[in-house]
Structures are given as C-alpha cells and as structure tokens.
C-alpha cells in the first residue's frame, strides 16, 4: 500500500512539474531532423500527433517548399512500462522498444516501425508502408502495413497504454481486432469539408507495437477475402465532427485437428469528436456481426465503444477520463483515468489507472517513453 502510494505520489509530482512547464515533444526524430523542427510542432505528447502532425502525416510526410536536412534514417523509440498487477509470469516493469525508419524515395515516403520484442517475444514488423500523395487528385495513398484510419490511432501514437474499448475485442475465434494493422492499400482525400478514406486489406500484422510474450494458441487466421473499409469524417459545427466507419471482411480460421472455416463479418461505428476550449470529447460506438465465429455456424453479435474526456493542461500535458465497454457477447466495462506530459524535450511520462465496472481490482500502470537521436541543438 505504501509503495503504491509512493509510486503514485512520485509520478504525480513528476507530471505536475512537467505540466507547469510543458515543452515540445520528440517522437520520430527523423522528420524533426529533416525539417529542423522542434518536435512539439507535430506532437502533443509523444507519440500522439497534434492537428499539425496529423496534417503532415496526411500530406505524405512532406512540407513542400521548406529546406530539408540530412537524417539518420533510423531512430529508436524506447518505452519502459510499469504494471502494478502483472499477469502471471510477467514482470511489473517491462522495457520495450521499436526501430522507426523513414526515407524519401522520390515522391514516395517509406515508413516502418519494427518492434524489438519484449518479455522474450520476437521482433516483428508492426507498420511498414509507402505513402504517396497524388497532387492532381489530392489523394493520399498508403501501401503496405498500416493502421485502420479510425477516429484516433488504435495502437500507435496513442495517449494511453490500454487499447480503447471495442478496438481490442476478439470475436469468438476471430482474433482480428480493429487495432491490428492491415496489409493492403489505403486511399484518403478531402471532399468538400468531409474526409473520406477507404481501405482494402488482404492480411494483418502478426505482432504487437512493442512485442510481447508469444503464446501458442492452436489457432491461426488469414483473410478468406479482402476486407473493405470506409471511413467518413464530417464537420457539423466549429470543432465538432461526426464520423462513420464501415468494415466488411471474411476471415479464414484454422484450429488444430479441424477443417479451416470462414467467418464473414461486418463492423459499423459512429463517432463524435468535439472540442471546447481545453476540453475534448471523443466517443465511438461500434456494432459488429460475425456469421460463423465458432466454426459451427453460430452467428455472434458484438457491440461496444468508448467515451473519452480530456483536459489539456497545456500544449504538452493532459489529464483524461475514459470509459470503455465491449460485449462479444460477454461484457466488459471499465473506467480509466490518466495523466501524461512531456518531461524534457524527448520523453513522455504517463500514469493511468483502470477500474472495472461495476467493481473489481484496479490496475495502476505507467510508462516512460522516449525517442532518439534527436536533431543537433534541439
């Protein structure tokens, strides 16, 4: 109890100090090197992108007209995670890292994120795509292994250590979550005030963003048919956007000693993103249906989502409260509070506590995340 109190007090003091003097962040130093930026230009709190950072990403990581500098091409992001109540066989403190890479190849930007593994897990490619913005059509293309363009980054550039609500849900024997990066192609463009993105996926990433202990589950999964996705964001007032996400796919699932079977599925989500002063509200509700999630022909309905309220203490410090829920069909619901801030120019400190609803053991966690090498003099 005393140790828990001490950890919370120390981290809170650290956060409070950082919040009082928020500083720019560093996340992918390669881009900062290229344009000579303070990385707080693109990041709110590492690794999350701010509005400008998202616009930069959506422009294929290009800022036409600005002078460019040499880069290291590769960078390292390291994260030390702390969990008060680790699963059996896991440690309380787990170091994990990722190699980030970016390079210009003519008009194309190559980007990748390879996890270094943790807890004895192997390294694996988590993201790896070519981004290209076609100026005449104003369409941004991503080809390779990318995240679904949901209302927020489901597994990267995230503001907590806990997957958002329904985005980490598995559906019967279908292990493909919304947070899992897909192999395929994405096209995105502005249509009037709205943003429309589409994805066609034919495979998915096998690892996690920071590695993890590998477990033989006896089940493997591929795509029986391409998965099609449609993502629409429409501003309905100043600082208020609504969204619609639609996914349609067909998984081929193989269990040991059992013939492979197909599970056709759909996922539909509606979202709201609203901001008023320093307060931001982000919420999404999903509905899903799997035709054959058990291989016995039984349909499986699912639902869930999240509501997040976040207060900006400054440009580089936040406190947030989030409720997550998912049912597929057994329900889980939890409340998460968190606080995060830049500490120095190149690191983030995060503390969070998750509590099941209606009750149960709480889980305290934290992380120190930093990236390097950063630009000279920054």
């Amino acid at each position, binding site marked *: 109890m005393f140790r828990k109190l001490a950890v919370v007090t120390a981290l809170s003091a650290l956060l409070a100090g950082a919040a009082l003097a928020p500083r720019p962040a560093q996340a992918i130093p390669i881009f900062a090197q290229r344009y000579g930026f303070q990385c707080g230009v693109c990041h709110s709190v590492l690794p999350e992108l701010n509005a400008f950072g998202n616009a930069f990403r959506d422009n294929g990581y290009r800022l036409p007209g600005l002078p460019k500098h040499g880069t290291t091409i590769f960078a390292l992001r390291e994260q030390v995670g702390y969990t008060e*109540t680790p*699963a*059996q*066989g*896991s440690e309380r403190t787990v170091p994990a890292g990722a190699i980030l890479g970016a390079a210009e190849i003519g008009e194309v930007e190559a980007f990748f994120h390879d996890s270094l593994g943790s807890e004895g897990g192997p390294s694996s490619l988590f993201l790896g795509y070519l981004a290209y913005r076609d100026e005449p059509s104003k369409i941004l293309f991503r080809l390779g292994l990318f995240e679904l363009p949901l209302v927020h980054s489901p597994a990267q550039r995230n503001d907590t250590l806990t997957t958002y*609500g329904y985005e980490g849900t*598995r559906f*019967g*024997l279908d292990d493909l979550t919304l947070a899992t990066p897909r192999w395929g192609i994405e096209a995105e463009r502005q249509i009037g005030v709205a943003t429309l993105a589409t994805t066609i996926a034919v495979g998915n990433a096998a690892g996690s963003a920071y590695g993890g*202990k590998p*477990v*033989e*589950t*006896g*089940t493997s999964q591929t795509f029986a048919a391409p998965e099609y996705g449609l993502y629409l964001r429409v501003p*309905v*007032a100043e600082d*208020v956007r*609504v969204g619609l996400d639609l996914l349609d796919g067909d998984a081929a699932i193989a*269990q*040991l*000693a*059992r013939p492979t079977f197909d599970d056709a599925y759909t996922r539909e989500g*509606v*979202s*709201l993103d*609203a901001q008023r002063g320093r307060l931001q*509200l982000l*919420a*999404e*509700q999903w509905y899903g249906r799997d035709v054959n*999630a*058990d*291989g*016995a022909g*039984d*349909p*499986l*309905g699912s*639902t*869930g*989502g*999240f*509501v997040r309220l976040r207060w900006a203490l400054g440009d580089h410090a936040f406190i947030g409260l989030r*409720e*997550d*829920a*998912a*049912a*597929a*069909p*057994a*329900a*889980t*619901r939890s409340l998460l509070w968190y606080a995060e801030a830049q500490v120095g120019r190149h690191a983030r400190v995060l503390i969070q506590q998750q509590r*099941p609803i209606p009750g*149960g*053991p709480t*889980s305290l966690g934290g992380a120190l995340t930093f990236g390097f090498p950063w630009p000279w003099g920054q």
Partner: protein
Amino acid sequence: MRVLSLSLLVALGGCTAGATASGTVGAAATAATTTIDISLTDSVVVPTAYGTSGGFTPAVATVVLGSSIRFVNTDSFAHTSTSMNATSFPAASPFSAAALTQSGSTLSGGWSAGALAAGTASQPILADKSGTYLYGCFFHYGAPMRAAIVVP
C-alpha cells in the same frame, strides 16, 4: 450545438447490449472451494488418462463431493472453462459460440464460465455428483487447452 453534443454523448456512451456479466465470484464460494488456475501463457502440456491436457492447473483436479470449484484466469487475455460431453478429449473442438455466455452451476448439469477476462474468476461450480468431467477453453482448445475434474 451543446444539445446535439450531449445527445450524441448519451447515444454513444460506450453502451453495450444483451450482455451478461462475467468474471464474478459467487457469494456461495466457501472454504471448501477448489481453485483451478487458467493460463495458456504458462501452460505445461501433460498427458492424462483422457488425452493431452494443458492450460488449466491442475490438469486433473480431484475434488470432494459437495464442494465448489472456481476457475481463475491469471492470464493476460480471455479464456473460457466450458464442459464437454465426452470420456476423452475429442481431436477437434467440441464447443460452439454458446460457450461465450456464462451458464450452469453444477458439474453434472454442464457449465461454461463464459469469456473470462484477464484477472477474473468464474461463477462457483458445485461438485454435485461423482464422476469425471472434461472441459476446455473455447478459444484455445487446440493449443491444447483442456483438463479434467474427478469427483470420487
């Protein structure tokens, strides 16, 4: 706009429907309760008289008639404990999606703990009748993840 935002907030409130609670420990649990640990991460595959077992510890639990059993998921992801009507472990999974919903409270009547989230426990299951009861995990049956309970 404020009304619209609030309305949407209520509508989007992370709501779930048609769901059953999981991971609760029943008040009926007593000192005469046997706890069976669920973990695929730390699983040791062992041969038993009913076939290859793994994922549940002990692989063969012998419990007293009239006592209770509860399953505790100490793993970092979801599992079920679901009974099967068999005298040895079938080669292929015998489970359907019904295993994802919590049901049953006796060994002889059959049971499923539903999808037990990490760190949660099942409803208590009463050892109400002598016999051998086989069970497994819906998600990871082929791992293998299955075990037995014997009531002498």
